[in-house]
């Protein structure tokens, strides 16, 4: 397999996704098959070929950075999973 279960575990940790042992094995198998298929690209000579990151050709699109009142604060706050005095509650970021 191109990708081992240990590697899947490491990537999942980087991507912040908890996986069960079964899922780790399944992802190692299916992702290995996909990565194996990607090898087809090695047939293509891409020496001196510029990568395509976008297709519109637009560059440096600007607009004025002006603050505006959306009038939607209550709606936005209403979507937050845990609120206290209209402030978002999150677990502590720095451990003692």
């Amino acid at each position, binding site marked *: 397999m191109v990708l081992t279960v240990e590697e899947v575990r490491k990537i999942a940790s*980087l991507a*912040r996704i908890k*996986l069960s042992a079964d*899922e780790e094995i399944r992802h190692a198998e299916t992702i290995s098959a996909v990565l194996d298929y990607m090898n087809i690209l090695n047939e293509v000579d891409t020496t001196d070929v510029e990568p395509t990151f976008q*297709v519109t050709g637009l560059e440096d699109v600007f*607009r004025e950075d002006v603050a505006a009142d959306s009038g*939607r604060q209550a*709606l936005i706050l209403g979507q937050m999973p845990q609120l206290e005095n209209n402030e978002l509650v999150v*677990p502590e970021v720095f451990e003692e």
Partner: protein
Amino acid sequence: MNLNELTIVRAAEGLRSKKFTSVELTRTCLDRIKKRNPEVNAFITVCEESALREAKAADEKILKGKSEILTGIPFSVKDAICTRDVRSTGSAKILDNYIPPFDATVIRKIRESGGVLIGKNNCDAFGHGASNENSMYGPVRNPHNLKMVAGGSSGGSAAAVADNMCIFSIAEDTGGSIRQPASLCGVVGLRPSYGRNSRHGIMPMASSLDTVGPITKTVEDAALVMNVIAGRDKMDATTVPELVPDYINEIRNPKSEIRNLRIGLPKEYFDLPGLDSEVRDRTLGAIEKLKKLGCEIVDVSLPHTKYATAVYYIIVPSEDSSNLGRLDGIRYGVRAKARDLYDLYASSRADGFPEEVKRRILIGTYALSAGYYDAYYRKAQQVRTLIRRDFDEVFKKADALITPTSPFTAFAIGEKSSDTLAMYLADVMEIPASLSGMPAITVPAGLSKNNLPIGVQVIGPRLAEGRVMQIGQLITI
């Protein structure tokens, strides 16, 4: 004919001439949803109350003589597109309770012109899939045969239009997510050029590929919707400044111009192993029809076609893994109970994403990680350049290309769901145009022996939406 079976054109005529009201039209759609949705599963959320309220307001607008083309027309929206005050899950449980405080720009335009939002369509979660089996709200069933998939990722939108649960739908297409389900359900689906329509408010999947467009019953309807939604948006910096033409005018070009059209047949699409012979024959039939109308048929080649799917499944998961980082249970959506911050992220994402979303994030995280970036992401973007050059060359010899939309008709639910790679290859005909930013439409071209719809795809050069719609219309009439 029942009101819910009408096209936009006919429904708008009926509303304006006061043959029926928008409330009546909306009720027939809601009745159809009630009757059929338990089986088809095309809707995650139905907005019965607000739809009837919007319909009433539209009727008043019509009475005052202030109606626009979409005023009073019931439409549905893929659930991966944000709708103000209406739950938008993206078909994933992590957003099960999410009610956007804003409308996507294209939705705002339709609602401002009086369109009636009837509900939100099931899809593969965040657009990840080609069969609508990756939804956390169950698969969508094909209205033509309930044992079959509706296609994906916008399966609910295509099924809702095909089954007359709404008059039209708005969906999103990254690699084929409008065209493939539209083809499998026998309706019209337009992927516009990248940058033609605003993506503001569309849950992002692969930012360099995502587009938003209509699924409709006729090509004329698609042109009408494009007239309302196309154009530059200050909230989406990738929208292009070119003026939006009147697409209805464009599809009504005089016959003399049709005679001068050169239609390209890319041989790689017709030589594809696994191309169903009935699909091939129907596509050739559509080409024959265009030839009789006076179009010139030219054989062309897009030599890098076979690499497109590999390129796509590197670029998309890479951009996906970055875009989906925002869904972490912190500011909105469903937050899992957790011991600490890491556990909060990892558990919210574990519970809230289906397997395919996790797989894409893992592939993308791997492809972008140190040591693999050049081998995967950069290499894919270089081959993408060669695929684009193929199209640039071909469009010197042809004004548009005709291909099948999907290599096969709708397949059975469960048939391909355990084979990741086979599912990825389902979009092989649609991915190259996506990678190149070209517009493409699928139009229905009859039924197979098993009574399943077959779709034909028209691909045009950038910003030639009018031309692909015109040719699509010639194939359907």
